[in-house]
């Protein structure tokens, strides 16, 4: 996969406050790159700069190796943007909304009709094409918000938190649509603070906080960054026993006994479950259940920044 967009040492400040600090990353052709971070991480600012709606103080953004600033019109022709807020004419039907916004990309005649059909089909609103946007549910409006950005079949689709405040059914519909669009060759830059969505759709992830890139990689590689996992062993009875023997086990970092639960924190990649169980058997403890709590992106974020994604 080659680079579609390269962001190099991007810097942006509002008045005296620096909000983006030398941010560098690339968006590869055909991937779903997720920008994950809490509110205030500068995700929206970053994408508004990339799509040319916002200026920046330092750095460079390249599209297919050429400066976006110098080729902004050509770049915007290939760009689809789904803003975080609903950007629709409420008094127009779904079809009329898409028709108007697609015409801004020069679509007319048969190409415009085909673009409208494609967009409505992609988000599952074909049956509602003649209905006014103000009669739609929140989830349907979100889907229409996406449809208005894809009728011209952009090469790069930027989505700014497109699932905020919607029902699970609409959310799944949107995520399915995104996967389909990627399969058809569209490159997608997706910002969110919902790590479940990132786990579901991302090809690659950039974790951002306070305008900086904290980590970058696939979800598997990012989870490995945390380096620890918890093993929770439920015991048959609530007894107190010495935990000293556990500390001879390789890779073990901490052991806690809480009522009937033994919680063992151990280093990722070290296979020591059999040894932990052996010690419990030696201590005449009966095991009722064993749960291995794998890391998720939330815990990775917590480890890297010391705060929660929803802080």
């Amino acid at each position, binding site marked *: 996969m080659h680079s579609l967009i390269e962001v190099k040492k991007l810097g942006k400040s509002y008045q005296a406050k620096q909000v983006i600090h030398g941010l560098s990353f690339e968006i590869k052709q055909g991937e779903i790159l997720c920008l994950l971070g809490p509110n205030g991480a500068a995700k929206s600012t970053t994408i*508004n700069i990339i*799509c*040319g*709606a*916002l*200026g920046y103080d330092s750095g460079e953004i390249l599209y297919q190796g050429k400066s976006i600033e110098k080729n*902004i*019109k*050509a770049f*915007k*022709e290939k*760009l689809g*943007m789904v*803003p975080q*807020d*609903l*950007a*629709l*004419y*409420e*008094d127009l039907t779904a079809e009329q909304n898409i028709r*108007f*916004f697609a*015409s*801004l*990309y*020069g679509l*007319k005649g048969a190409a415009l009709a085909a673009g409208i059909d494609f967009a409505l089909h992609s988000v599952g609103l074909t049956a509602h094409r003649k209905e006014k946007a103000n009669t739609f549910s929140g989830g349907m409006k979100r889907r229409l918000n996406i449809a*208005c*950005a894809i009728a011209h079949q952009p090469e790069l689709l930027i989505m700014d938190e497109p699932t905020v405040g919607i029902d699970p059914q609409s959310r799944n519909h949107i995520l399915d649509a995104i996967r389909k669009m990627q399969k058809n060759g569209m490159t997608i830059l997706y910002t969110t603070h919902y790590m479940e969505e990132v786990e579901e759709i991302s090809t690659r992830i950039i974790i951002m906080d306070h305008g900086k890139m904290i980590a970058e990689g696939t979800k598997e590689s990012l989870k490995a960054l945390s380096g620890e996992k918890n093993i929770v062993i439920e015991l048959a009875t609530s007894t107190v026993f010495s935990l000293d023997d556990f500390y001879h086990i390789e890779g073990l970092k901490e052991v806690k006994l809480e009522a009937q639960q033994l919680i063992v924190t151990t280093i990722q990649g070290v296979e020591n479950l059999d040894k932990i169980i052996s010690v419990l058997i030696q201590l005449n403890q009966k095991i009722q259940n064993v749960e291995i709590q794998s890391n998720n992106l939330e815990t990775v974020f917590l480890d890297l920044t010391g705060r929660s994604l929803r802080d």
Partner: protein
Amino acid sequence: MYRFLRIVQRDTINLLINPMWIFFGIGFPFLLTAVLGVLTEGLYGSSITSYDYYGVTMLLYSTLYAATFSANAFLEERIKQPNLRIIYSPINKFSIPLSKIIATFIFTAIFYTLAGGVMHILLGVNFGSAHLGKIMALFLAVDFFFSCIGVLMCCLFKSEGVANQIISIVTTLFAVLSGLFFPVASLGKQMVAISKFSPITKVIDLIFSLIYDTAATGFLATMGLLLGMSMLLILCCGALFKGEDYL
């Protein structure tokens, strides 16, 4: 050009689907003329009635309100969000303020012309006959100039509320200075001297001169002044408008 025309079309429709604005466009000048005409009927003669005087001045006063229409067309919340997509699209950002000016001009030109017709039929207001085309051109030039002022205020102050407050002050100032409600002479010599700098004073004097003296002296100069100032304001809008104002 196709893309720009689509934006102008959309902006014009957005104004046309607002019944309050349509009422304001027709009803406002008509009601002002009717009320002031009745109240001051005894102060005017039979050759030039109070309706003739206030019909012209109140229609001109209403055209100053084109600034309010254009400010709303530019920054009204209902329209602001969809306009955000235009910022993201491959269209020159200058198209956005320019389109609002043109759409407002189309809307107000239609409804103020209708208002003038209604006032002529129902209140018998004399808008002249020999130079009706020139008189209409002057009204429309003021209309266009104030459409530009409204958008410029939005580009300067970035907020519909603040822009409307400033526009309200500017409009009232022009109306009082140009003697649209009462003769400016009653405010003293200094105000009379100041009022001569107002382009609206020139317009109102010229319109009455065209109606009653059928004298067109200064028509081209006044039109040139209004259009020149409008062009200047449009250039200022282009320089001041930043797409990120919408974000």
